[in-house]
């Protein structure tokens, strides 16, 4: 019992299972998570904020963004403090195209993702040569620049923001409704699953190795033939793509975007989700996003002091679990099989 650890426990079950059992586990887990909107009656209920809204935003969207940021910070070790920029680009793309064209959310989605990726490349090309804290401050600045530009140019409607953004069109029997946000939750869940799929795919193949090598020793990686700048930009761009996708959906869910929604605080909060849950570990990051997204609304009863409590929680958890709640630690045994079926 002394060495019990949830991550290893879970991984053990996974390894002992054969393919059909694994498929079954995956389906059951996804099914259970998809039921989450129905679980709001009891202990989980959030005072004031509607539970079904809270699990879409912040919880699910935080998880999605944390997974995206984790590609940048966790996988390839670059500190990005301006992640909100890509979220904002996605949201504003949705806002602008949503009210000025007849495109719907799903048609705008690829455009938003594309623009976010473009911004990622444009920012990445000159700056990703910088290291560590310098990169952090430059990305931070980029996040602020996007917000300030949104505040000062006319097509974003300045500080008034863009309102009246259309909701996504119904998907068959699934109808998007304001007073019942289950469908939004399922859509974000699907996006989260796609992101997890993408990260897992890439992790065991060449890009994952390249990122891992860059994170651990960038010079050695380059000398072993890893085109580091290229993979850093890829990492940055994929992170941007996820952020942009989250932004598009957020715009369409929120029906309103304004510059004050995209402050540095969002970047920091998402980074906190990543580090808090367990940097580099998909499951840890998800746990981080869920807890940090959900907690402030759950503890609304302490009303005015909740940000204080939130800060204290960050300090305490980081001091006692510096690698996060579910840390990244490769298990040596596990890799034999994983390698075999990749």
């Amino acid at each position: 019992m002394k060495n019990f650890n949830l991550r290893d426990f879970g991984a053990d079950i996974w390894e002992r299972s054969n393919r059909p059992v694994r498929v079954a586990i995956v389906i059951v887990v996804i099914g259970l998570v998809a039921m989450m909107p129905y679980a709001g009656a009891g202990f989980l209920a959030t005072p004031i904020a509607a539970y079904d809204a809270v699990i879409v935003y912040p919880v699910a969207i935080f998880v999605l963004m944390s997974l995206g940021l984790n590609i940048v910070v966790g996988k390839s070790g670059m500190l990005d403090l301006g992640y909100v920029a890509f979220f904002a680009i996605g949201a504003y793309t949705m806002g602008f195209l949503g009210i000025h064209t007849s495109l719907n959310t799903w048609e705008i989605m690829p455009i938003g993702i594309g623009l976010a990726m473009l911004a990622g490349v444009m920012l990445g090309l000159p700056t990703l040569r910088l290291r560590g804290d310098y990169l952090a401050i430059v990305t931070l600045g980029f996040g602020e620049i996007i917000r300030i530009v949104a505040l000062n140019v006319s097509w974003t409607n300045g500080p008034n923001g863009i309102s009246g953004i259309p909701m996504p069109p119904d998907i068959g029997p699934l109808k998007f409704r304001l007073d019942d946000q289950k469908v939004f939750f399922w859509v974000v869940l699907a996006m989260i699953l796609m992101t997890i799929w993408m990260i897992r795919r890439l992790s065991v193949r060449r890009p994952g190795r390249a990122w891992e090598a860059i994170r651990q020793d960038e010079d050695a990686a380059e000398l072993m033939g890893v085109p580091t700048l290229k993979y850093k930009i890829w990492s940055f761009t994929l992170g941007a793509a996820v952020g942009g996708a989250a932004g598009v959906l957020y715009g369409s869910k929120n029906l309103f975007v304004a510059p004050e929604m995209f402050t540095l605080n969002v970047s920091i909060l998402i980074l906190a989700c990543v580090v808090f849950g367990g940097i580099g570990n998909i499951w840890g990051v998800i746990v981080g996003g869920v807890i940090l997204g959900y907690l402030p609304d759950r503890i609304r009863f302490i009303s005015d002091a909740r940000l204080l409590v939130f800060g204290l929680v960050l300090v305490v958890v980081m001091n006692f679990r510096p690698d996060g709640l579910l840390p990244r630690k490769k298990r040596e045994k596990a890799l034999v099989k994983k390698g075999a079926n990749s």
Partner: protein
Amino acid sequence: MSKTLLKLENLTMKFGGVTALNEVNLEVKEGEILALIGPNGAGKTTVFNVITGVYQATSGSVLFDGHNLVGRKRFQITGLGVARTFQNIRLFGDMTTLENVITATDVHKKSGLVGSLFGTPRARREERENRTKALEILEFIGIDEYSDRLAKNLPYGVQRRLEIARAMGTTPKLLLLDEPAAGFNPQEKVELATTIKKVRDAGYTVLLIEHDMSLIMGISDRVAVLDFGTKIADDSPTVVQNDPRVIEAYLGVPADAS
């Protein structure tokens, strides 16, 4: 006479006011083991750093297999067939032994991120090829039993060997070994000497920095000596050993014990 693989011409490297390398000329022939020796601070590792593109030479050229390496990106140089190990071990600690080597084998593969993401046939094939090749290399170096251990948890000697294996993963024509025997006991040194010879016999050319004279005498075809950034000797081991300038360089400046 076999063909010249690497040729340094009048290579000069200055850091601010300090001249680390001064007009160094050096040739490495295909298939030989050339040892580069010299007292500490003589500029041996600087030679490696210039060849591999870590430093940009102040003047002079580095010709490798028909290409001038000066001004190329580091990963491109590796792609052309130059690979190195590090004096202070710089493995990817959180990766397994096997993954360390696979990371290096990626350099000649074509499939990129998109292929990997969607699992194109080529990407899948290349993953398989990489794996097979990496396992072969580990077996060749004799550390295949550790293939699934994390690099940071390996015994010291295995880490040193993994450095060589990882460099071999890039399929180099020229292998630069930076003090591969540092910290080894005599027994391990003998084993390492065997390995290096085996590597050469497998068709690799080796340029080696080393302090241990007996190891060098045992395996090198030729020895070049650097002192204060200048090449002072370049000949067969026995000749170099008796060269008065070399002796002076070593006695004049206390040699490092290792």
